[in-house]
């Protein structure tokens, strides 16, 4: 029996080559997209689950709630929290660990590299039970400066992994070099983790001063805090304990008393400072919402992107299934005789339905084979686009194999069920006698409805893609307020002692026109904020409330180099000796003076409208240079410039000139010979800062990197949309070919009545234009609604009016594609000799 089914199925596939090809291609594309997206989603949602006891690991995040304006969010926490919480919640917590990552130069002989070191409490391996290659958790990480490195690091510095007892030199820890003896080597972490550990150093809390802000503070958030919960404890339980402790028993609760006393209603400490726990396996996809703009240990995933991709995969499969359903029912008349005869010979409806279902599943399985091959071919490209190393080894990957078979079975049943029920319904007597197809008007209507769904889906995808692209381009094209061409950013953090001579030698290079220092380069987003108080009384402002402002330090000529012009007042100038912020020569009780430039947002925050009004006013602050009191005269106002990504608002910012804070140099160059330029700069660097690796980047590259993930997302999104449209069009082509074939008799009669070729073509094209037009009318409002919602998350977004032309163009485009698809067939049928057509019916 099954052999007979297979024979019939196979011969039908061969006989209807075009239709089979359309079905198989469509389903293969759908399944391929599905597999690619499954691979990505699985990797993304499987982050950190491989860690031992991962379900018991949590990390503590911190949020400072600001009454006015956005809260300050971070996935870090204060240094004193971990031991205090661990000791308080002994019943819930097994152990805790703090991680403190920082950049350092690591030397071995003549080689020097910038590395990220992670200092960790000795309890590290109680929380993260990572496998060792050499050494072990009990003996390798027990005393200060014990150093564990990854296999990768061992190979990089020593060319082998058996390196216990070898030494690396840490450069410039408080201007000293520190030898680190390697006590263990761990296996490289897999890609699917939020941890980024190459060099792990035993944290000795004693080396931090009592008032040090890294470790010994309740409010400064500089460490990553992890806990391992006891078995059976839930995150919610521990969270409840933690919040109770914060509000009632924590030592820092009292330090916040000045907050809790103000206002009529009594507030709790957690109304100002929240400590939120998040399960470690959730970190990759969920941490983003707690991370503010400081980021995490490694690039974060995006739940929204995952969901979008899953939806796209399902839609492409849906479109392919609809193709199958449409072509199967459209061609049902060809199979009607077979069905009737089988029934006459004793087949029950169930048997016939089962036959067609099996046929559908078989076609899906064939498609799956093609899809598997396609995945193998496309995977390298896909990995490149995503920046991942996804692997696809089906036979070493039983869960994947079985879920693929399940998906294929599901798709087969989904696509085959309706045709199976439809075909098996035929009553044999009627069909065998009259030679009729048994096709009812309702089926044709259903087919049209399915085509509408297909096209509405594709149109929706195209509109979404167009909007995503427009928004991405728009963001990239926003005027950032400064000139970023021909700029190199040189990290000078390690050369702080000879900035002046470095600058002089760089400027002397013929291809360099200027060198300016600053605390951050554009795109480098360090949030430095503190209280500033306006000294003068101005109209409408009754009290001199201190307000929080973001501040940067820039050197002379910085704004000029970036071609930022003041809208009022002047920029920093060496002719005004008092601009510079400097510590007093001798400790005195007097107030110190310096100048600042503010941006327009800061002007607004101060309650001023006219930039001129701000010139000459004074800001007071005591937190910008140790705790010396400073009166800062506003000498200039500049337009808002985007120091950080345009994905975020511009912050009210105050620019001052404190050379102590300079970390980067912006080099403006005027040459096309980039290799020589880089070589010259490197030479200067080596002469000034020997033994330190140079860290030099193009500003243009740094700016592009900010939008990398958006661009990737847009590219993938459009690739999948194109596939969806392609599959939908193939289906339409098949349907059109079939309809033209079925209507040969009608067309013959029309021609005999005097219809011309173009009349017939118009007739057929109009038949297929209708569903596409209806699909547009359905897709437009839905996509406009969805994309308006999506755009809400951008502070700067394209004008919503742009959606209209996008919709219209998409509509015209789909119509055109549909016409091209249908037109060829229509013309062929229309040109045929009518007599021939009428004889064949």
């Amino acid at each position, binding site marked *: *029996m099954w052999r*007979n089914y297979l*024979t*019939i199925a196979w*011969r*039908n596939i061969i*006989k209807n080559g075009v239709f089979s090809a359309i079905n198989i291609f469509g389903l293969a594309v759908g399944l391929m997209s599905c597999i690619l997206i499954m691979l990505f989603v699985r990797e993304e949602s499987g982050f950190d689950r491989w860690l031992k006891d991962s379900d018991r690991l949590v990390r503590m995040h911190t949020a400072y709630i600001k009454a006015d304006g956005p809260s300050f969010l971070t996935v870090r926490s204060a240094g004193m929290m971990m031991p205090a919480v661990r000791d308080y919640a002994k019943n819930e917590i097994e152990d805790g660990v703090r991680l403190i990552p920082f950049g350092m130069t690591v030397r071995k002989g003549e080689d020097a590299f910038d590395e990220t070191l992670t200092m960790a409490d000795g309890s590290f391996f109680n929380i993260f039970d990572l496998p060792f290659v050499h050494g072990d958790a009990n003996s390798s990480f027990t005393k200060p400066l014990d150093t564990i490195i990854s296999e990768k690091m061992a190979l990089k510095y020593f060319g082998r992994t058996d390196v216990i007892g070898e030494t690396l030199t840490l450069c410039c820890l408080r201007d000293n070099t520190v030898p680190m003896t390697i006590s263990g080597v761990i296996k490289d972490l897999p890609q699917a983790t939020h941890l980024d550990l190459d060099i792990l150093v035993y944290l000795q809390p004693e080396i931090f001063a009592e008032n040090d802000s890294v470790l010994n503070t309740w409010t400064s958030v500089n460490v990553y805090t992890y806990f391992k919960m006891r078995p059976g404890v839930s995150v919610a339980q521990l969270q409840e304990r933690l919040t109770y402790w914060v509000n009632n028993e924590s030592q820092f609760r009292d330090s916040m008393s000045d907050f809790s006393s103000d206002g009529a209603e009594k507030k709790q400490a957690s109304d100002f400072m929240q400590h939120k726990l998040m399960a470690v396996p959730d970190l990759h996809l969920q941490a983003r919402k707690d991370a503010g703009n400081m980021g995490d240990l490694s690039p974060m995933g995006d739940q929204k992107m995952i969901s979008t991709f899953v939806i796209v995969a399902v839609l492409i499969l849906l479109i392919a299934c609809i193709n199958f359903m449409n072509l199967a029912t459209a061609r049902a008349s060809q199979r009607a*005789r*077979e069905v*009737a*005869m*089988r*029934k*006459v*010979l*004793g*087949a*029950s*409806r169930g*048997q016939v339905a089962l036959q067609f279902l099996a046929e559908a599943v078989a076609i899906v399985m064939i498609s799956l084979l093609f899809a598997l091959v396609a995945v193998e071919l496309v995977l390298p490209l896909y990995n490149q686009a995503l920046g991942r190393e996804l692997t696809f080894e089906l036979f070493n990957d039983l869960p994947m194999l079985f879920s693929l078979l399940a998906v294929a079975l599901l798709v087969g049943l989904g696509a085959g069920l309706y045709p199976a029920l439809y075909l098996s319904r035929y*009553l*044999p*007597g009627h069909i*065998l*006698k009259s*030679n009729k197809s048994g096709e009812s008007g309702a089926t044709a209507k259903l087919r049209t409805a399915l085509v509408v769904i297909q096209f509405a889906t594709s149109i929706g995808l195209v509109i979404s893609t167009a909007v995503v692209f427009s928004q991405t381009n728009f963001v990239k094209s926003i005027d950032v307020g400064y000139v970023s061409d021909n700029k190199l950013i040189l990290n000078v953090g390690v050369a702080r002692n000879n900035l002046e001579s470095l600058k002089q030698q760089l400027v002397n290079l013929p291809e360099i026109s200027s060198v300016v220092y600053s605390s951050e380069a554009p795109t480098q987003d360090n949030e430095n904020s503190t209280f500033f108080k306006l000294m003068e009384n101005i109209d409408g402002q009754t009290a001199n409330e201190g307000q929080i402002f973001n501040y940067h330090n820039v050197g002379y000529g910085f704004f000029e180099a970036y071609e930022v012009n003041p809208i009022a007042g002047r920029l920093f100038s060496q002719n005004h000796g008092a601009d510079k912020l400097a510590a007093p020569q001798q400790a005195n009780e007097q107030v110190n003076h310096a100048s600042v430039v503010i941006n327009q947002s800061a002007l607004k925050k101060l309650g001023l409208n006219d930039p001129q009004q701000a010139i000459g006013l004074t800001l007071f602050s005591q937190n910008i240079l140790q705790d010396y009191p400073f009166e800062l005269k506003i000498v200039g106002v500049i337009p808002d410039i985007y120091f950080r990504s345009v994905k975020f608002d511009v912050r009210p910012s105050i620019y001052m000139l404190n050379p102590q804070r300079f970390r980067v140099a912006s080099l403006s160059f005027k040459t096309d010979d980039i290799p020589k330029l880089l070589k010259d700069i490197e030479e200067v660097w080596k002469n000034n800062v020997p033994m330190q690796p140079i860290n030099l980047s193009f500003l243009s590259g740094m700016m592009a990197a900010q939008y990398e993930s958006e661009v990737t997302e847009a590219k993938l999104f459009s690739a999948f949309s194109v596939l969806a449209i392609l599959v939908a069009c193939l289906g339409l082509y098949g349907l059109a070919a079939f309809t033209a074939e079925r209507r040969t008799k009608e067309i013959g009669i029309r021609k005999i009545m005097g219809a011309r070729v173009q009349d017939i073509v118009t007739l057929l094209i109009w038949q297929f234009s209708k569903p596409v037009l209806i699909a547009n009318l359905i897709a437009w409002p839905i996509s406009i609604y969805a994309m308006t919602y999506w755009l809400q998350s951008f502070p700067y977004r394209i004008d919503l009016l742009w959606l209209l032309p996008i919709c219209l163009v998409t509509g015209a485009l789909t119509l055109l594609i549909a016409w091209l698809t249908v037109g060829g067939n229509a013309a062929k049928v229309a040109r045929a000799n009518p007599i021939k057509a009428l004889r064949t019916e």
Partner: protein
Amino acid sequence: MLKLHNLSRTYQSDEVETMALNNVNIEIKQGEFVAIMGPSGCGKSTLLNIIGMLDSPTSGDYLFQEENIAGYNESKLAIIRKHNIGFIFQSFNLIDELTVAENIELALLYHKVPAAERKARVAKVMDKVGIAHRANHMPSQLSGGQQQRVAVARAVVGNQSMILADEPTGNLDSAHGQEVMEMLQALNEEGTTIVMVTHSPSHADYAKRTINLFDGQVITQNIKAA
């Protein structure tokens, strides 16, 4: 073998009610060869479809081997049908995608006959209708007469006791038509009951009894002298 009692069949379309069969009373005995004749639209095919259980009566009784099956549903009818009745159609109704042998074998597939026995029976019946040399051809490669012989083979391969033939010679020239009629006669002589709808008086002559239908009613029954 079967007995129709006061059997009627009406077709309902939107506003028109058509009475295809009106109070038909017919009895057909085991081993008979019955021809049904009448002008187009008189209800011949409806009658044959009801006898063949491809259609159900609107009212009246249908006793098949003493069992009243008038109210049976499709699947019950299918079971009775496949064990007792073979069909032959004017348009042959062979499945284009299957070879001659596979077409004949199809009838046995739904009878759960083991593969080896199927092969043997198909070979035997192909011999009987003289089509064995065409076993692996596709229907489109055969002449009309050959195709109808395959259809006859398919109708009898399951050892059905009754064959219903709906104008089996309608699409054939006279020589081929006669060939098929002789084959049916031979089957009848071996004991198979045959009910045949035909327009051709000369082919009706092969039957032992002719029923004339007109506007859904039995007008006359002629019994051929032995």
